[in-house]
């Protein structure tokens, strides 16, 4: 057996041992609707808009005409609500608002979660 073949089989063996030993096959449970949402039932006007205005639609972030997305009105937010990107960044990855900005409180996160789960009603 040549040195090249030995090198190949040794490296392949190491790679596959590492790969298979670190493999799992897990799924997240189906998300349950938070029971608190039954009583909160938040809507955009009056509940969600003030949160968005104070934490997202601020100058340099999601203000009117922003290249990162305009969150000043319900209609301008809709595309990112429909495609799930707002939920992904705000609730799943929680990297929005970004580090250094005032974060969303637990109460605000719950209101946004309930609002999105209810189909983000306007009023």
């Amino acid at each position: 057996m040549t040195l090249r073949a030995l090198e190949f089989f040794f490296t392949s063996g190491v790679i596959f041992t590492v790969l298979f030993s670190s493999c799992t096959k897990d799924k997240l449970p189906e998300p349950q609707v938070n029971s608190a949402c039954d009583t909160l039932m938040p809507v955009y006007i009056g509940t969600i808009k003030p949160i968005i205005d104070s934490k997202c639609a601020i100058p340099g972030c999601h203000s009117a005409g922003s290249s990162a997305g305009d969150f000043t009105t319900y209609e301008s937010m809709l595309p990112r609500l429909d495609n799930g990107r707002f939920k992904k960044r705000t609730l799943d990855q929680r990297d929005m608002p970004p580090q250094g900005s005032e974060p969303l409180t637990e109460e605000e996160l719950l209101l946004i979660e309930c609002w999105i789960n209810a189909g983000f009603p306007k009023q």
Partner: protein
Amino acid sequence: MRHLLTYCLLWCALGAWAQSRERVVRTFHDTRIINTQSVEMLAPRRLDIRIVHRFGDMLGDAGGWPTFYGLENAADVLFGFDYGVSENFMLGLYRTKGAGDRRQLLNLNFKARLAQQRPTMPFTIAATALGSLSTMSQVEGSGAVSSFPQFSHRLAFSGQLLIAHKLSEYIGLQLTLSTVHRNLVPHYDDNTIFASGLATHIQLTKMLSFIMDVQLPLNGNQSPLQTVKHPDAPNYYLPIGVGIEVETGGHVFQINLTNSAGIVETDFIPETTQSWRQGEFRLGFTISRLFNL
């Protein structure tokens, strides 16, 4: 006369033997096509420093004038290097931003050439293995993939078999068979996804080539072959890329358009949710610089 005939026969036999051992090289001009890896390898002790950038959607809801057709956003970025360990084996280490549920990725890639096209062998064959580790902060209580209940949930893997044939001096084709495994997925998703892909490289001039690749997931919600999809799953699309490659001796510069936001296999095969038809394609470029060590 008999000596001359023997000499001619011997010369022809030697020529045929030499031709049968002549390797067909440069089916592609780079180790990556657009999204897919190619069968090409780095020469031993060659270092390839690589920067790949994908801008935001050119059109659609997130594109157009407000984002200057996506140029003011970055969907994904790769910084890293590949290194040729031997003639038939190379490795790479890259950091990518990540475009799916896992972000801030460290990717380790291995590629081995198993066969080389020659007159007696119609294909160049290579295999790749990629491991991807998310280094993002754990988002506790989110109920999403980024909650990472175990450390192993940060990992995703990809394995590929690349089979290429150089049709002529100007045209190369590649069939790709891929599998991607993610240790943790949402409730509607499959951990392991299989995919097949096609790629081509057409040389237009001495320096300029046209390149294209596409991946077709074969199972899960990602696959167009699956008629019944989970209602909670987002809409997935085939990652398709087209581009132009410019080679200027030591540099490869590539400019492309693709609907894939992710750059590495563990991202773009299971996570492409952007559609060409809805204008959700982006401009991308690759800069590669080769060094001899």
